[in-house]
């Protein structure tokens, strides 16, 4: 029993050759966000506040695909989405945001201030204005790297699903370098305090060159995000595979219905999704942490009350 926290910045085909200038800012952000979360848990902040706080920080960081730094749709715009849930199964979700600086905080407001769970597109933007959350011009979210990334995706005539979709052989060589820099993904955070209160939050810009109006797994309760009295989960990877596998709920379902441990349940679910498609972070009510993935790597970090802490991208044999 004790507090625990885990966060991620996306899972995918992250090349081992990722240059230091691409790798370090992300590792530093993970470290900083982990410290923020740990500090908040030590100050007895409720896990729901902690996951929101940490995901806001990750959204503000342009190196990850959420909030500022979101990847672009086929029209060169951003359409962001997010969801949040706590162990009492209260939840909120948003999709199709174009001006809201911190989508995760709007998801929390949907949970707390409306009778609904999920608001999207114009209705969500209107709600954001009603609630007075910080909004900004869309250009704030768009980074030069993402403009370039969209162009490359269009040239390759494909929808780049996060960065998990294997490149066609012909284009693999020419886009290798650029792809090395596209290793940014959905962000998420899960936390438990030393009373066993749990929460989960996930936020994303979606996938490069996505069709307008595309919704992925991130805002879907049970797919990208889930929490109940046993555990909290945030998933990342190929959205369509995660939706199909109801990945986040399934970790909890295996613990609940089959009596598996957090680690067993998380590993089982990740193995049941086709390779290269998914990663997740999870904490249990008793303070365990699991961070399995079946992709090349996952930007991730965790800490527990007993002093354990880890920041990693690939499996230990590669780091």
């Amino acid at each position, binding site marked *: 029993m004790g507090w625990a926290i885990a966060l991620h910045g996306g899972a995918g085909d992250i090349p081992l050759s990722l240059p230091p200038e691409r790798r370090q800012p992300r590792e530093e952000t993970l470290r900083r966000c982990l410290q923020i979360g740990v500090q908040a848990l030590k100050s007895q902040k409720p896990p729901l506040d902690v996951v929101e706080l940490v995901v806001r920080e990750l959204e503000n960081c342009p190196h990850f695909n959420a909030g500022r730094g979101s990847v672009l749709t086929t029209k060169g715009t951003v359409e962001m989405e997010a969801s949040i849930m706590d162990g009492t*199964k*209260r*939840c909120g*979700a948003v*999709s*199709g945001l174009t001006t809201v600086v911190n989508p995760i905080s709007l998801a929390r407001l949907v949970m*707390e*201030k*409306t*009778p*609904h*769970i*999920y*608001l*999207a*597109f*114009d*209705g*969500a933007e*209107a*709600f954001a204005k009603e609630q007075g959350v910080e909004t900004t011009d869309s250009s704030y979210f768009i980074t030069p790297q993402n403009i370039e990334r969209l162009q490359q995706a269009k040239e390759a005539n494909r*929808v780049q*699903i996060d960065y998990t979709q294997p490149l066609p052989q012909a284009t693999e060589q020419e886009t290798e370098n650029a792809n090395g820099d596209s290793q940014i993904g959905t962000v998420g955070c899960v936390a438990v305090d030393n009373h066993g209160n749990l929460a989960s939050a996930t936020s994303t810009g979606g996938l490069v060159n*996505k*069709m*307008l*109006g*595309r*919704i*992925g797994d991130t805002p*879907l*309760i*049970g*797919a990208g995000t*889930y929490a109940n009295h046993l555990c909290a989960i945030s998933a990342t990877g190929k*959205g*369509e595979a995660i*939706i*199909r*596998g*109801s990945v986040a*709920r*399934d970790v909890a*379902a*295996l613990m609940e*219905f*089959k009596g598996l441990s957090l680690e067993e349940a998380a590993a089982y679910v990740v193995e049941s999704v086709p390779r290269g498609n998914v990663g997740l972070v999870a904490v249990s009510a008793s303070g365990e942490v699991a961070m399995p993935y079946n992709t090349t790597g996952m930007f991730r970090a965790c800490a527990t009350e007993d002093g354990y802490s880890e920041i990693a991208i690939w499996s230990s044999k590669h780091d």
Partner: protein
Amino acid sequence: MGGWAIAVHGGAGVDPNLPLHRQEDAKKLLTRCLDLGIHALRSNHSAIDVVELVVRELETDPLFNSGRGSALTEEGNVEMEASIMDGPKRRCGAVSGLTTVKNPVSLARLVMDKSPHSYLAFSGAEKFARQQGVEIVSNDYFITQENVGLLELAKEANSIWLDHRVPSETCSASVETPLQMNGLPISLYAPETVGCVVVDSEGRCAAATSTGGLINKKIGRIGDSPLIGSGTYACDVCGVSCTGEGEAIIRGTLAREVAAVMEYKGLGLQEAVNYVIEERLDEGKAGLIAVSSNGEVACGFNTTGMFRGCATEDGFMEVGIW
């Protein structure tokens, strides 16, 4: 292999004082839709084709809350949503925020079959509809006089904003009386959603759900119907379509839950349905229909009623409300 089976629903949460002739109309439509599905199954159509066919029929008839006859948003227009899922490979498609697409379930099917994505919403979904050349109509087509009247009454009845699920001091015990759904008096409640689940004679399951959503809903509100795992789910084991208080269904990931307790707890279909209705809804009200790959059919609800019908290959057929 137990043969084919089919179930349809037209929503849960029925006014106990619903006039008899309205009850008869609903039963007639459910029977007609069952017959349509049964005929298609006898002609060896696949489960996924049959659920789409039946839900199209339910959308096209103005009686229930989907397609034509959808409940109206706070602004008096319709925003429809739907999803469909094919058990064998768990392929799925979903749409939200449609305002001109005559048959939302068919657009969900096209998202599944013709796009790299699983879920398209609002103007992006409308644009995709035009690319695909599906039938488009004006928003007026969906709006019935009856729903215009219901919206007015709902607005007078203090709207969903004073709903019992909003944590605030305005909550009072009176809003939790049994004859409320989604914070509305049951007489004003338009049962959300239509759905169909099918297992064909090859044991393939499929599910589809379609809705206009909650009456007087906020623009942009997404309910459970388009959410895979909440309103709709199908896998190798079963197919499930849910209806009722959307937020309770989402929280309970209700449709996936039926499959999960079958897979992970080894429950039979009816046991799984009962368990989910009793244990997984907390205080919410909902109903669901389900089929298993070995040809069983089951339904369950904790509401005053659910418009529903089911049939199996061995000749069993039932249409009911209460």
